[in-house]
């Protein structure tokens, strides 16, 4: 191999490796599945595991939210599918919702997840046309979760006891 070719290949490899490291710093993946999923998503080749997603939907509609989250997480192990992340966030919302008080731990997880869903959605916009849901967009869900985590005088309003779960 000629010296110029070696140098050119070395330079390309270094630039590529630097780009990969910068991408990893930005994405902060938690597992190899997230790394490979992120790479395949960047070239538009990422697909969720459809049977697991269907399991998640069935469990979600049966109000088995923790089981539904497990199935959804299995379906989207790389956390790159906005719709699946939206359903996970919705499951956290419903799991944490209470007539007298909301569970902050579930709502916090829901907020993290819906933020991730918005981040991976094209142009940051998620709309899920599901008639069984009362909130169809990521923005609505995020606002609801943030309102649930907020502490203000409206928490003392007795009429809030009559509000239903969305």
């Amino acid at each position: 191999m000629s010296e110029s070719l070696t140098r050119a290949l070395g330079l390309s490899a270094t630039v590529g490796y630097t780009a990969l490291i910068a991408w990893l710093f930005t994405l902060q993946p938690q597992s190899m599945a997230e790394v490979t999923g992120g790479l395949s998503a960047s070239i538009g080749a990422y697909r969720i595991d459809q049977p697991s997603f269907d399991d998640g939907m069935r469990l979600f509609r049966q109000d088995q939210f923790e089981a539904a989250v497990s199935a959804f997480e299995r379906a989207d192990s790389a956390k790159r599918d906005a719709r699946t992340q939206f359903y996970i966030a919705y499951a956290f919302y419903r799991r944490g919702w209470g007539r007298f008080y909301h569970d902050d731990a579930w709502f916090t997880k829901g907020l993290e997840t819906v933020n991730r869903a918005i981040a991976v959605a094209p142009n940051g916009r998620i709309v899920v046309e599901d008639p069984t849901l009362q909130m169809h967009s990521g923005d609505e869900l995020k606002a609801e979760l943030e309102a649930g985590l907020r502490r203000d005088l409206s928490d003392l309003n007795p009429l809030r006891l009559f509000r239903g779960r969305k």
Partner: protein
Amino acid sequence: MTAAREAFQLPILFLTVVLLGAIHIADRVSLRPPSLFGLVLSVMLLGLLVRSGALAPDRLMHATRPQLANLNGLTVIVSAVLAAAQAFTLVTPDFGLPRVLVSLFLLILLLNTLAASPDRPRVLRSLLVILGATFTLKFVVLAALSGPADGRLARVLQILFEGVTLGTVSQDPIHPATSYLAFATLVLFLVGLSLLPGRQAWPPTAGRSLAETPSGGAIEPRRRPTADEGTRSAR
């Protein structure tokens, strides 16, 4: 230095140091970029390496070299600076009094080594000691003081220690995998530094390899000029 080492081995080795040094394993894995202070220290280290002859920048970037070779040289220098910044960040405790003290310790040691103007082996040995000492402090001593206590007595002693130091010394518990990874990263970094092209003992004859010189590359002893040579130089 071969083209392969300059183009492939050194940049990739130093970038691997940047990547491995960034991995922090706790309840979740995160990647921590080098700190600003780490970058300052790494620039100082670059100066130290050049001054000591451990790194000869003109062997990486020079007007007489082809443009592509100069680009390769630039990647080596930039990746070495980033790797050094990551190594310094890695051995610095995360917060509190230990962070301040170790940062000062590193700064003073580097300034002291710069002032001493040591040669290449001494600089590398000095770096080994600096990084080894700070690694031991963070990943052995502070980790032992901050980690979860095994027994009740150990827990009581830990609480007493935290009380005496007003909680300024304790750090977040360090996962063992992070410690092993940090050790491997530092070893890799030191290997990379030892592979950098250093200052040559004598300038090689232009256009000829050392083996082609009359002495076959050996340093020729200085000889007294002959009478004829002396007369010519006087004219």
